[in-house]
């Protein structure tokens, strides 16, 4: 199995760390992974993205022009990456930042209103995990177990108490996502 994923949104939305957690989860399950960010002076607004590949075999190019899955969190990201999803692929979007709804018939399109949900939960920090939960629901690139391991591995010890909350958010995301 090999999944080629792009995650894209505003610089501040945490798209890069979302990708990192995903990649780390793959690593925890002994898969091959690559994570490739857009980089530069992103702190100043603008759109950031990262490509994550999770595969059972050696990964050749970390640079892609077509994706199995795109997670888009604002309009420019949608405009840019929707056309690059392979037929039969998956598009996940958060409607919060989207003005014109996606419109391809040869792919699976899912909506996840994670921004609103995170605001509702009064915890902006779990936004990431909600989105990831949604992804794992519609395409179990990695297991939730791998994800949990990744959190234990990457978070500094003093934040480990937050992990149950995060895993709960994953569950929320799984419940929240819906075919658009």
């Amino acid at each position, binding site marked *: 199995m090999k999944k080629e994923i792009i995650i894209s949104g505003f610089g501040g939305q945490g798209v890069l760390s979302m990708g990192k957690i995903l990649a780390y989860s793959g690593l925890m399950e002994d898969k091959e*992974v690559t994570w490739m*960010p857009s*980089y*530069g002076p992103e702190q100043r607004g603008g759109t950031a993205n990262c490509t994550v590949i999770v595969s059972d075999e050696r*990964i050749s190019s*970390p*640079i*892609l022009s077509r994706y199995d899955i795109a997670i888009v969190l604002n309009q420019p990201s949608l405009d840019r990456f929707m056309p690059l999803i392979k037929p039969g692929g998956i598009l996940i979007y958060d409607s919060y930042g989207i003005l014109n709804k996606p419109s391809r018939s040869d792919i699976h399109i899912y909506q996840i209103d994670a921004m609103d949900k995170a605001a509702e939960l009064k915890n902006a920090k779990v936004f990431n995990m909600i989105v990831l939960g949604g992804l794992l629901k519609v395409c179990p690139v990695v297991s939730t177990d791998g994800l949990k391991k990744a959190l234990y591995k990457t978070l500094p010890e003093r934040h480990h108490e937050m992990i149950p909350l995060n895993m709960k958010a994953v569950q929320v995301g799984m419940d929240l996502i819906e075919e658009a």
Partner: protein
Amino acid sequence: MNNEVTLLKGNEAIAYAAIRCGADAFFGYPITPQSEIIETLSLLKPWETTGMVVVQAESEVASINMVYGGAGAGKRVFTTSSSPGVALMQEGISFMAGSEIPGVIVNVQRGGPGLGTIQPSQSDYFQATRGGGNGDYNVIVLAPNSVQEMADFMDLAFTLAFRYRNPAMILSDGVIGQMMEKVVLPEQKPRRTEEQIRKECPWATIGRTKDRQPNILTSLELKPEIMEARNIHLQEKYATIREKEVRYETINCEDADYLIVAFGSAARISEKSMEIARGKGEKVGLFRPITLWPFPERQLAEIAKGKKGILVAEINAGQMVEDVRLAINGAVPVEHFGRLGGIVPDPQEIVEALETKMMRK
């Protein structure tokens, strides 16, 4: 700290691997896309563990001259930068070559010329392999194509540098520097003791003991006869390195009709292009020089025999293609494909280039 499997950026891998391979010092100046190297080192504060020194220098000019000083004193010392910063180091690198100083330079390339762009590029191939500084000299150039190789080449670069008393460079780029991949970090090696350094580096300037003549590191010599002898010594050393230290990788070259020659991140991308082409039934192989200098010229010439064509895929306007042409010497058609300005080609483009430039024309 044993071998550790983890997920790191190429830049971070450089920092971790440097500490673990017993590096004695880093001197460098921040520049995108490689500032994570000095940042990671600053965070890990190896001066409290292995005793490694980390200094943010006032410029790349200072950095490379600190490397000169530190490596000249027998220590494993390196600097890292990106393209324009490395341009500033050319005088220093030339001095190191002339004085035979085994320092290591990492260039995480971005697009040029000038300030250019912070996006990835491979357009410093000439600067690295032809010696951007003055005089006849060569730098050993290693081109990693994965985060693992970023880590592995750190120790290798030091080893080669000290084996030949010659500067060695890791020529990476923004793709390899910024991407994360699984990496197995080497075990922590101890830094060498004074005794070991005295033994391994009898030339090092660490205080002249009574039992030897003063050690003098200089690239200057005003007597032409002596200077020519020193230059000939360098050229002979380079010939030895050419003989012994060529490294390359071949994938599916045996039955191939066409070869892609590519290094570093372009090789990763080309590997996928090769897969795509093979999927279409075209017999394509990949030849990846790992040492850009010494360039695997004999090896490539050998493998290229009887092929229908060679496509050199680089993220530049055509640089390594010259070395390929020099190696092939007209025996097989050689074409170039490249993207510029920070655009990283995708695998499909290279397939198309193969088709239009080599197969269909």
